[in-house]
């Protein structure tokens, strides 16, 4: 991977990290989108799609209701794709999932830290905000946005560093069969998380019937393919 590609992945990770909460919430932070673009940057859209599907399913376990804390799978998928691309096939998906899950955990922790820093900034500017000073209002808002950009950059950078470490130390030590066990475990958990999240949304009423109808249709489609 070239330095230019690393730089583009970092830039993409910042945009993805900003999209999750700050701006514009257009869902480029969804793993399917962040994964496919990361794959395109590396010239490997297929791996980006595959790992994007794994993390998109994991994302369905998360409900963004209220002010809940959740892992951040956008930059995580970017970092995951960077390692999955370097190791072909199942080996790549397994190691990509390892890096992605750890980066997702870090992303969630960092979101909480930024919100605490924002709270302190608001408390410091409280008098000016109560006086209706537009400059203070804009300053608090823009610095918070910048804080989130720095957070997204750090999370992506740590994820990419983790990916580089895994490429150096793990790729050679796992056999193909061993890597396949890791990939199968990650895939299984992703399917479980996607199903569990959807069941939680569907509840017990008529919506559950629609879910069952979809399952039957999807299973038939998969069998016919």
């Amino acid at each position, binding site marked *: 991977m070239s330095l230019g590609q690393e730089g583009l992945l970092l830039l993409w990770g910042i945009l993805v990290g900003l999209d999750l909460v700050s701006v514009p919430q257009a869902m480029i932070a969804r793993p399917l989108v962040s994964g496919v673009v990361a794959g395109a940057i590396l010239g490997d859209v297929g791996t980006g*799609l595959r790992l994007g599907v794994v993390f998109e399913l994991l994302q369905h376990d998360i409900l963004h209701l209220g002010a809940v804390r959740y892992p951040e799978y956008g930059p995580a998928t970017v970092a995951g794709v960077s390692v999955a691309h370097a190791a072909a096939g199942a080996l790549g998906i397994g190691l990509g999932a390892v890096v992605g899950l750890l980066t997702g955990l870090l992303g969630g922790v960092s979101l909480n830290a930024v919100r605490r820093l924002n709270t302190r900034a608001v408390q410091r500017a409280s008098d000016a905000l109560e006086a209706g000073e537009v400059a203070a209002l804009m300053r608090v808002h823009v610095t918070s946005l910048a804080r989130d950009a720095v957070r997204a950059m750090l999370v992506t950078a740590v994820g990419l560093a983790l990916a580089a470490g895994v490429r150096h130390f793990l790729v050679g030590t796992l056999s193909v069969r061993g890597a396949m066990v890791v990939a199968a475990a990650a895939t299984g958990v992703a399917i479980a998380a996607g199903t569990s999240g959807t069941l939680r949304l569907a509840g017990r009423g008529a919506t559950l019937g629609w879910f069952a109808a979809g399952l039957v249709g999807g299973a038939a489609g998969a069998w016919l393919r």
Partner: protein
Amino acid sequence: MAPVKPPLGRTLLRLFTIQSSWNYERMQGVGFGVAEEPLLRDLGRAGDSAAYRGALARGAHFFNAHPYLCGLAVGAAARAEHDGIPPAQVERLRTALCGPLGSLGDRLVWAGWLPLTSGLALAAVALGLGWWAVVGFLALYNAGHVALRWWALRAGWARGTRVAEALRQPFLRRAGAVVEPGMALAMGAALPLAAAYLGGPFPGWARMTVGIVAALGLLLLRWRRLGLTGLRLGLGAVAAALVVGWAWR
């Protein structure tokens, strides 16, 4: 007196950043004030800078709702300020809108439109549409997203303190009635298709492992007393798999 041509476009752009300054004290309050500010400028231009500053200070108070529907409250609060509604009533209006806008948005978007379009995208990727599925997801999702933001802002500004009428619009009920089963159908179809897509490159024993892990994982995630999340389960499973992978050469 409300401006004849309010700067709704500028407010809409700022609404896209409403959560940038999210914090544990005022939550979306600061972002709310930033988004409302263009609509309040006329108060200051009319020579009443105290009214402008007072309205801006109120705008930055605590607020929390679904980010796509905040425009409804921003528009309504700004209109109320122009209509000379007493400050305490504007504050009550904002407070009263938090719950309904939060629950409506969560139900309509986070639990409906987003998983519906994501499910369609997952199914399309699994059926071989590749990155076109992702482009389609972004286009479809954001058509609904931007339309909802724009409708909310316009409806809030048009109605002011009568904003509750907007929340009783029949199309919102119809949207909920379509989106909820649509989400379940799309995700139901996407799950087996995605499982087949992901399991395709694996040999038989690995596919069986995927199935066992998925079944056990689903049981553990549905067992509420464990309080397990997908992330924790994923980290535990890949850690165990790494140990097995090293041992099984």
